[in-house]
Structures are given as structure tokens and as C-alpha cells.
């Protein structure tokens, strides 16, 4: 197994003990939910409701015809008070439907979704399921692999390699049946003969829980704890020993990767017709009562922090997602979206130091040693800094998965990921122009 592991990676302090023993609890119903119409990669939805409309929990409120997209549903019974632009945690501007929830909410019921037919894929699409592992890519698209690349192995990604986050861990531990059911449904849908649930060695209890219920054909694989074990390409390398070729989809190796929470959501969508209106969010760090909260999509981050007891003294950056790849929030009123697995309130001393501008590279090679894509981040950074995009392309900037290992290890704190991201954007734009 060891020989298959990916090269590079880092071992940040994982600090998962704050929340990995806290059972999932329900977050309070907020006073206002703001459901963005673009929570996924792909075409944004158009609003199907107007200001003043009444909506029911589970009701479809936004949809679009495009193939790469996912509809959105109302998480509450309530009244639409606005349909307008808001800023999301990612800094993107999106149209959002703002709903004031009714006093009385029946949280156990919802309007089941209606799908065009009974196929798993259609139901998943109708339920608005997107990848809950972070990228928020519409799951239904991934359930339709290109014909020339049949999927032979389904990998369920339970690595949760980011420090602090435990939402997937708790889900696997508390509801292994949902995860396994999802695995079976997805594997059946894409015709994969083998399903592997992969998790890191710091979640042995969850592995045991899964193993206890895993039927034949569903394998539980424990991988070494190393960031970014959960990144798709690295995970495929670690589980089936193959490298996704440059520029190809993972399906080229015969693998399909889904997050465990995604699988659980698929199980609910198929079995109960349940739309994706809630997800588990880990709220942790410098808060008084860290924990995992079943949270309605659209809940303001402030509400969640209050639910976790509020700030515990001074704090540093507040991050949506994990501290390695998540986004620092400028504003706590932004809503929770489908792809947001955690709110991490960092300790002031722990937040990366604020770097203004360029830092020198001392060529220590730590970044290239840590890069799981075997890139040379220092070089990409240097060329990106000069806006020499050809130079960044020579060093394969586009292969970067933005895992953050390079910035993490850099002793001079060069903002490598940001530089590389800029290069990627520029290269993609130029590619689009050509």
C-alpha cells in the first residue's frame, strides 16, 4: 500500500479532537435564510419565485436547463423577501433568494422532489446534489462518465484530510448505513464493479463502523494520514495506484471519486426524494462550544457561530471550509452553501502571518518537495509575479490543484498558491481566447 502513496504532502497539526467526539446536532433555524442560486460549478439557476411568494421546505426555487448545473430548494417554510445580488464567501456575486422562515417549522418533513424518471441520475439531479467534498461540482454530471472511459472503481472519499474538519468523520461514524447505501446506488448507476470507502488512519472508529456494515463489493481502506490524501488525484493514486494523466478526467483511470456525504445525500435523494437543503457543518476553533451542526443551506455564518457559543476571546481569520483550502471571510453575514463543510475560527497566533506583497524565495525546495503534483511552485511563483504566463505554463501551472502545501511549508511565507491561482486564471483566459 505504501508504495502506491502519492509523493509530497504535509502534516499540519490536525486539531480534530475539538469536534470529533461531538455528535451531529441541529443548528437553530435562522431568522433569515439567503439561498444563492449559484452554489455549484456551472451555470447559475434562475429564480422560480418572486418577492412576496410563500415557499415550502423542499420547494424548488431555482433551476436551469444547462447540463452542468444543479437546482436549489428552499430549506424552510417561509416568505420570500428579496431576490437580489449578494456576495458569497468565495467573493463571487450571485443572485440569492432571501426567505424569512415561519415561526413554526416541521424539520422532519419536506416536499419530495419530482424527477423526470426513476434513474439514480435524474433523482440526484432533481435533488440538487453537488459534490459536498468542496468543489461543489454537480454530482449528476459525474454519474454520467464518458462512454469510452467506463468506471470500474467507485472511491468514496472519507479522508477529510483538512485540519479541524470532522463533519465527514461524524457522518461515517453515526450513519454508516447511509454512506454504504449511497455507495451501492452510485456504483450501480455507473456500473462500477468495486466500491472503496477510503479514509485516513486518524478515523479508525469510523472505519470500524463502516466495516461492521459493509456488504460484499464495498471495501473500507485505511490510508496514511497525510494532507492532501483526500484530493481526487492523490486519492486515486493511493487507492488504485494510478496517476490521472495530465488533462484527463479521473475516469481515464477507471475511477470515480465521490465524497461520503455526497453519497449519503444520494441515498436520501433516491430513497426518500429528499432535496439537498441541509448539510453537516463543522464549527470549530476559537468558539466556545465547537461541534458539528446539521445546517440549512442559506444560514448566515454568524448564526452558526452563535450556535457554537460565539467567539472564545480574540480570534484570527475566520475561514469557510478547511484552513488549507478554505476562504477567509470578510463578512459574517454570508450564507452557508452546499459546498461549505466547516467554519474555522483560527487562533490569532495560528493564522498565517499577513504578508504584503512579494517575499523572497530562498530556494529551499520545500515547496517542490511538498507539492503532491510534483510541480515546482517556487518557479511558477516567480514567473507569475512577473506576469510571464508562458513561464508559468512551462512549469505546468495548470496542473496545480491549489492544495496549499507549498504555501504552508514556505519558510518565507511566499503567497505561492495565490500567485499560481493568478497564473492559472490568466492561462485559462488566454486558452479561451485562442
Amino acid at each position, binding site marked *: 500500500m505504501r508504495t502506491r502513496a502519492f509523493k509530497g504532502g504535509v502534516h499540519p497539526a490536525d486539531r480534530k479532537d475539538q469536534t470529533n467526539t461531538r455528535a451531529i446536532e441541529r443548528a437553530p433555524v435562522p431568522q433569515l435564510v439567503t439561498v444563492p442560486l449559484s452554489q455549484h460549478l456551472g451555470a447559475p439557476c434562475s429564480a422560480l419565485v418572486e418577492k412576496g411568494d410563500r415557499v415550502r421546505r423542499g420547494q424548488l426555487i431555482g433551476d436551469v436547463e444547462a447540463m452542468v448545473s444543479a437546482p436549489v430548494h428552499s430549506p424552510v417554510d417561509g416568505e420570500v423577501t428579496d431576490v437580489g445580488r449578494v456576495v458569497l464567501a468565495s467573493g463571487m456575486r450571485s443572485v440569492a433568494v432571501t426567505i424569512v422562515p415561519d415561526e413554526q417549522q416541521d424539520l422532519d418533513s419536506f416536499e419530495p422532489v419530482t424527477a423526470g424518471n426513476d434513474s439514480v441520475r435524474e433523482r440526484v439531479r432533481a435533488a440538487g446534489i453537488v459534490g459536498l467534498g468542496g468543489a461543489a461540482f454537480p454530482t449528476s454530471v459525474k454519474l454520467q462518465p464518458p462512454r469510452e472511459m467506463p468506471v470500474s472503481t467507485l472511491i468514496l472519499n472519507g479522508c477529510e484530510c483538512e485540519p479541524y474538519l470532522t463533519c465527514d468523520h461524524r457522518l461515517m461514524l453515526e450513519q454508516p448505513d447511509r454512506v454504504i447505501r449511497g455507495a451501492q446506488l452510485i456504483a450501480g448507476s455507473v456500473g462500477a464493479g468495486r466500491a472503496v470507502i477510503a479514509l485516513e488512519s486518524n478515523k479508525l472508529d469510523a472505519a470500524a463502523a463502516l466495516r461492521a456494515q459493509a456488504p460484499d463489493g464495498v471495501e473500507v481502506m485505511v490510508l496514511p494520514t497525510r494532507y492532501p490524501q483526500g484530493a481526487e488525484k492523490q486519492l486515486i493514486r493511493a487507492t488504485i495506484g494510478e496517476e490521472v494523466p495530465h488533462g484527463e478526467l479521473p475516469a481515464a483511470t477507471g475511477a470515480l471519486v465521490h465524497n461520503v456525504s455526497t453519497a449519503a445525500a444520494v441515498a436520501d435523494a433516491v430513497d426518500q426524494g429528499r432535496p439537498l437543503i441541509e448539510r453537516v457543518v463543522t464549527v470549530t476553533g476559537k468558539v466556545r462550544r465547537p461541534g458539528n451542526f446539521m445546517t440549512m443551506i442559506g444560514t448566515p455564518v454568524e448564526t452558526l457561530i452563535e450556535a457554537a457559543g460565539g467567539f472564545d476571546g480574540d480570534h484570527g481569520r475566520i475561514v469557510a471550509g478547511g484552513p488549507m483550502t478554505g476562504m477567509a471571510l470578510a*463578512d459574517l453575514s454570508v450564507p452557508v452553501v452546499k459546498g461549505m463543510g466547516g467554519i474555522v475560527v483560527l487562533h490569532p497566533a495560528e493564522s498565517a502571518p499577513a504578508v504584503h506583497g512579494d517575499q523572497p524565495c530562498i530556494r529551499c525546495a520545500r515547496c517542490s518537495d511538498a507539492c503532491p503534483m510534483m510541480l515546482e511552485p517556487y518557479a511558477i511563483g516567480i514567473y507569475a509575479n512577473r506576469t510571464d504566463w508562458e513561464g508559468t505554463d512551462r512549469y505546468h501551472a495548470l496542473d496545480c490543484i491549489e492544495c496549499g502545501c507549498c504555501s504552508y511549508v514556505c519558510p518565507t511565507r511566499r503567497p505561492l498558491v495565490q500567485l499560481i491561482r493568478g497564473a492559472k486564471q490568466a492561462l485559462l483566459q488566454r486558452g479561451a481566447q485562442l
Partner: protein
Amino acid sequence: MDAMLVIKAVAALSVIGLAAAAMLTAASRKFHVEVDPRVERVLSVLPGANCGACGNPSCFGAAEAIAQGALPVTACTAGGQAVADAVADVLGVEKCAVASIVSLRHCGGGRAATRSFDYAGVMTCAAVARLAGGDLECPAGCFGYGDCARVCPFDAIAIDTRGLPVIDLDRCTGCEVCVRECPRGSIGLLVMAPEDGAVAVRCNSHDKPRARRDYCSMCCIACKKCEKACPADAIHIIDLLAVVDYDKCTACGMCVAVCPQECIDLTGRAAIAPAVMLDGRGPKVDGFLPVVPDARPEGVGK
């Protein structure tokens, strides 16, 4: 003197000389390759900045296209009339006039605009624009991190002490490189007569005037005073924002005088304010613009 030695020397040198001459002559006849000499000639009068404004990747590409007639002799935006004339000259065709365009900044906020968060990271406009939509409350304002200044192939832009790019119209050639680079569209490209100058509205926010006022003291408040003052009917409030019609504008400066927000400027050769440049060694300004010099390793993108 040794006559024999002279003869020997003459003979030796002549043999070598004739051999060399013969070889070269033969070669130049036998291996003659036709290269379009016009391309070379056009290339020799182009500025050689390879700025790409003409839509060609390099001046050489432009020269080829011009020589082949695929592009007009005025194709080099950067070179202006002088180059156009020179190109016409070397090609032996009629000269034609080019319109002179320069770029103009559409934001006057700078330090007067509110920042929404403390930013740390790469000090470029493009980078900050990708993080939470940028550190300005104003959705359209200039960040002031100077991407435009970095890319201008003619070194026409510098960030001044207000944290705003100032465009040196003497140097700007209207190549549009900065316009393409700016993540905000804070710079607009327009046609103007440099001798006369022109007016520029320094606000680009499409928020409601009330919201604008909250985050910027220099914004256009859509009071319509300029519209009323303009004798040439060249400035109008459109979508709650003053917009100049440069075909009509005579650069009389009436609107500049009446604007209560000092949001309109007269620009042009005669009117460039002597701004204090921050090109790496000017005074350090507190607030949001601490590191532009550091963020810009010297000569980046030049």
C-alpha cells in the same frame, strides 16, 4: 626591397581574395532566397515594443501583415501618426491620418473610498479581485495596486499618492494593454484630441448614489449639475451616472467647475495635475497603499 617577396605576397593574397570573392558571388547567385524586403523595412520603422495592441503577437507579425496588405499602414496603434507615416513612406503608399486615443481612468476614489477588509497577500489588483470580490466596498472602484502601471509597455502609468493610477498622456499611445489588464474596468478607452484635453468622469459605480456615498466621498451623486452646466449638451446622467459624449465635448471645463463632488476632471496635455508619483521611492503613504513599491519588483512586466 625584395621584389620576389612582393610578387609572392600579391599572388598569395590575390588567390585567397579571388577565391573568397568567387565563392561569395557564386553563393549569392546560386543560393538566393527571396525574402520580402518590405517586411524588413516596415519592421525597421515599427516601435519594436511588441505590445500586441494591433492584435499581432509581435511587431514582426504586424510588419508581415502590413507588408502583405492584411493590415492598414496605420495598424500600429502604439506608434501613432509618426509611425503610420513612416510605414507609408517605406511602402511607398499614401499616408493616412490616425485617430489619437489615450486611456482615461474612470475612478477618483483612491483613499476616499472605503476598504472592506484588511488584505494580505500578493499586492496586485488581479489577486485582490479574486478574494471576496476585492477589498473595496465599491464594486467598480480602482484598487490601486497598479496592475495597469506594471503592464503598460510605454511606462505611461504611475500610482500617485492618492493611490490612483495617473496616465501620462505624453507617453500613452492608446494601446489598450492596461484596459485589458484592469480587473475593474476602471480605465476606459476613448477617443480624444490631446491638444484640447477632455473631461473625465471619475466614477464608475452602478450602485445607487446613496450607497455610493456611504463608501466613497468622491462619487458621482447624480445631481445633474454638470448636465445643466454643459453648453455643448455633451454630458448626461445615464443610469444615475454622469457620462460624457466625446463627440460633442469641447473640453470647456464647465462641468468640472460645477461638480460638487470634484468627480469630474479636465485632462489632456495641458491639464495634467502634477501628482506626486509613488514609483518606488516616493513618500510612503499610510492606509491601504503601504506596499505598492514592494509589491512591484522593479521593472516587473516592463
